[in-house]
């Protein structure tokens, strides 16, 4: 008899923890769990695992794998949607899954119980948050495409409880996100994997690396701060999608005031931040931080520190979010999509959050997508955001004006020096065409003679994104359905060129010159019409802050490989090479996170 292969579960309902457990008891949220439905044609399996993400509960202390979370063969909360067998640990014992069809009960604050190291709920929750973050950025209103990872293969591994350490990081070479845990001095265990902010932040690093892989090896603190700032913004805006947090019981309205001051939405990683001694949280995206070294003392950042400088970018974009939230009713495109019934009830607020959040994330991630390769400054990213937004939302000059003004007020110099470049090119779709393209435009792009140039050409779509989501329920496919939004008419080409540039090196003992990567982006219509040309500009401030950053990260390091007592090279993350008096740096992003003690 022929055995029937098991039916593939093509969608799952996942409960995710939406607030740090220790912080949850201080808030009045309805629930600290939130349901998410994720679909993928290749299905979901035990782990949890799917095509893009797999939980690997590997314990670094014992070298053993903990048991995977299994799919529950009987659970069918919605047609064709499965669930994992992951009861939520409560103080009264393991709770059965709280969601059935037509019921979206969550777990009340204070009900959450002690979570053991082999608890399946943690695996499922982390899995859900990683996918939810991916879904947030891939959705048609933001980037509208499946984002590849920066490493070979399709699957990102996630270790939810790697070991005892106050850290969590994305690590490209091991294709993984790793979440650690530890005990506070009061004896309480803090799991970084239980913090939605931290999981979303680290996932965003993996996403950003997939979009702009050059930033990983950048050597300027602003380039690394782009990673940090966008990751914080993503985490902050994801938390605003949690209706359990934004709506208090009996309160039908959500006020703008909640976003005008530091709040549980804007504070990033509260529990973890407290544990690490950073005050109320690690960082706060509701801020007035500035790059201006002459700015008010409490607004200034350390421009040589990627984490510190990142607050300028996240704060700037959060300000854009707040304005969009406030003026959503003025946007006829958004307002007319809502029914009268929706407009009158509290669902309107959820649409409003989704509108402002998608618009802001779209602005940021499309800018990142268009950002020229190599070391980039906040000004370079702002110009890329403005250029992309002009193409996607040609009629919404108001948002661009606000972005420009906000950037300027934060000490980011957004100059509009127009690049002299031809208006028509031949799209280089073959190696021979690439060589020809380079020969023709090298001078105009100011590429130094003799510099090796790496060119990539990618098909992209310029389309009018949906102003508000079709529904506010969280159900999405890992391959975004773009049929409604893109067609042959929206096709364009994104040409990116990257090369090495040299500058004087003032780091004693590290040569007299140093190289950094830089580049250009050219957006071209299929007929060869040049729509946009962007170059990364290396400002004097970037050189100074790069020197200060490198001085810090190279402290105690040598050019020669450093060998540990075990006879193997030390793992430094950051790799410094000195060739003929020129210093080149790679792996700064990894050093910043994995080697940990730099900041």
């Amino acid at each position, binding site marked *: 008899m022929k055995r029937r292969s098991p039916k593939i579960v093509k969608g799952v309902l996942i409960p995710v923890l939406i607030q740090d457990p220790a912080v949850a008891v201080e808030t009045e949220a309805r629930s600290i769990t939130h349901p998410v439905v994720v679909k993928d044609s290749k299905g979901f*399996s*035990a*782990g949890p*695992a*799917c095509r893009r993400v*797999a939980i*690997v509960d*590997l314990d*670094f*202390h*014992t*070298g*053993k*794998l903990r048991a*995977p979370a299994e799919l529950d063969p009987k659970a069918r909360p919605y047609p064709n949607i499965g669930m994992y067998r992951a009861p939520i640990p409560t103080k009264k014992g393991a709770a059965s899954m709280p969601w059935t069809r037509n019921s979206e009960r969550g777990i009340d604050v204070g009900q959450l119980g002690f979570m053991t190291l082999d608890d399946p709920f943690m695996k499922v929750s982390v899995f859900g948050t990683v996918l939810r973050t991916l879904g947030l950025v891939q959705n048609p209103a933001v980037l509208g495409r499946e984002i590849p990872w920066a*490493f*070979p*293969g*399709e*699957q*990102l*591994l996630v*270790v939810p409880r*790697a*070991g*005892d*350490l*106050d*850290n969590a990081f994305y*690590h490209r*070479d*091991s*294709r*993984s996100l*790793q979440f*650690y845990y*530890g*005990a506070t*001095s009061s004896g309480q265990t803090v799991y970084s994997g239980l913090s939605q902010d931290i999981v979303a932040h680290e996932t965003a690093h993996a996403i950003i690396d997939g979009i702009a892989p050059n930033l990983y090896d950048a050597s300027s603190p602003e380039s690394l701060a782009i990673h940090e700032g966008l990751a914080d913004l993503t985490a902050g805006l994801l938390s605003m999608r949690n209706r359990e947090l934004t709506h208090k019981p009996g309160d039908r309205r959500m006020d703008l005031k909640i976003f005008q001051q530091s709040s549980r939405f804007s504070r990033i990683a509260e529990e973890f931040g407290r544990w690490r001694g950073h005050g109320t949280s690690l960082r706060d995206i509701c801020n007035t931080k500035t790059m201006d070294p002459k700015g008010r003392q409490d607004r200034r950042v350390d421009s040589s520190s990627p984490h510190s400088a990142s607050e300028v970018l996240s704060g700037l974009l959060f300000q854009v979010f707040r304005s969009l939230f406030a003026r959503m009713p003025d946007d006829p495109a958004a307002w007319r999509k809502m029914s009268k019934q929706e407009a009158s009830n509290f669902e309107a607020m959820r649409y409003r959050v989704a509108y402002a959040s998608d618009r802001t994330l779209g602005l940021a991630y499309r800018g990142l997508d268009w950002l020229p390769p190599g070391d980039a400054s906040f000004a370079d990213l702002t110009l890329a955001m403005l250029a992309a937004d002009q193409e996607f939302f040609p009629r919404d000059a108001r948002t661009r004006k606000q972005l420009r003004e906000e950037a300027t007020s934060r000490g980011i110099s957004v100059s509009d020096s127009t690049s002299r470049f031809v208006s028509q090119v031949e799209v280089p779709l073959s190696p021979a065409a690439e060589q020809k393209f380079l020969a023709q435009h090298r001078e105009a792009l100011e590429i130094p003679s003799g510099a090796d140039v790496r060119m990539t050409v990618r098909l992209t779509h310029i389309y009018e994104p949906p102003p508000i989501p079709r529904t506010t329920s969280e159900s999405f496919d890992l391959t975004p359905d773009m049929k409604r939004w893109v067609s042959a008419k929206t096709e364009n080409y994104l040409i990116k060129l990257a090369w090495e540039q040299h500058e004087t090196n003032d780091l*004693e*003992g590290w040569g007299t010159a140093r190289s950094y990567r830089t580049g250009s982006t050219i957006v071209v219509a299929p007929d060869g019409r040049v729509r946009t040309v962007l170059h990364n500009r290396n400002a004097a401030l970037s050189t100074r802050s790069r020197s200060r950053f490198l*001085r810090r990260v190279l*402290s*105690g390091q*040598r050019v020669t490989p*450093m*060998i*540990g*007592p*075990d*006879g*193997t*090279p*030390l*793992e430094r993350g950051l790799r410094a090479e000195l060739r003929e008096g020129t210093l080149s740096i790679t792996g700064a992003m990894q050093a910043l996170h*994995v080697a*940990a*003690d730099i900041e």
Partner: protein
Amino acid sequence: MTALTVVAYNVLFGDAILVCIPEREGRKTVMRHVLVDVGNVLAGPGSGSGVFRSVIEDIERRLDKQPIDLYVMTHEHMDHVQGLLRARTDGVRLPPIDYAWLTASAGKDYYERFPEAARKRSLHLAAYNRVKRIALQRNLLGAAAVSSFLKNNDPRKTDDCVSFLRSLARRKTSYVHRKFKPVAGTNFSFREAKFSVWAPEHDTSSYYGRRRPVMRKSRGLKAPAGVDPAAFEALVEFSHTGLGDEMLAIDRAANNTSVVFLIEWRGWRLLFTGDAELKSWKTMEQKKQLQPVHFIKVGHHASHNGTPDEDLLEQILPRKRPDSRPRSALVSTCKDTYNGVPDEGTLSRLERRVDTLYRTHDVPPGKPVEISFEEMK
């Protein structure tokens, strides 16, 4: 005698330094003595307890029946603490010691008073045990550097030595840190020479670095169903790396608790650094401790991370000298014990800033290098 003398013994890979300081008492000059550490590593070419007998005998001769006025234990590593206990166990009579300064965290009740340091210390001990198990699993215990590292950081062996050193002083044992105030007749006996402690901080919790745990190799560890085998292999490979880094992080934590102190005598400024590493140097800079000196005992046996970077070194040995006194540095080390120690780059950096670089390994084991600081008019 009108010269202060630093007598640094070749104890292979370790420190044993006697400082002989003439002090005026009325019309008389008396010699007072400070002994800094005595120890060496327990494995590899830098080990050998036979040197301690001749070192103690030489010290006895120099003391001329006087006691050691002050003994300083910089930090809790065997290459700094094991010598005196070892010598006594071998039947050598130790000279009497009046006062002892031990690094703050060597106090018996220290970890009760500093819970965060206690928490980090327990993680640190767990890391040590894990590293030891992994080294055993990977057949690394035969490697001299690994064996030397493990024995040097062995908490049980170190505790035995420290326990012995706590009870050495006839008058008083003090547990010192940056805010410790030396008071003649109370916690030391010097009247003319001025002592100041630059490090460590009293709360040592900041000296513990953050390291991810290295994973031991498990047989039969395979990618679970649904997991990309290539990705899983990359993850497992990564989790096995970093053993050397974890060893150094463990070593670094104790090194950074080193007592760093300055002796000022008749215009001379002599700095003794124990094995302080970069974290401690940066903290000293933040606390505005750094200032120009004429002599430096080079930290951590001239490893690349025991001497601060150029900007900090400039504050201690500025290129533009504040006075005309000669400058010197002392390296107490033994080649081939640890990879890259002494670090040639570090030695070159120091040579560019001092007139004379003294090395203990230029004399036979058990013998001293003498550096004199004459009184200058």
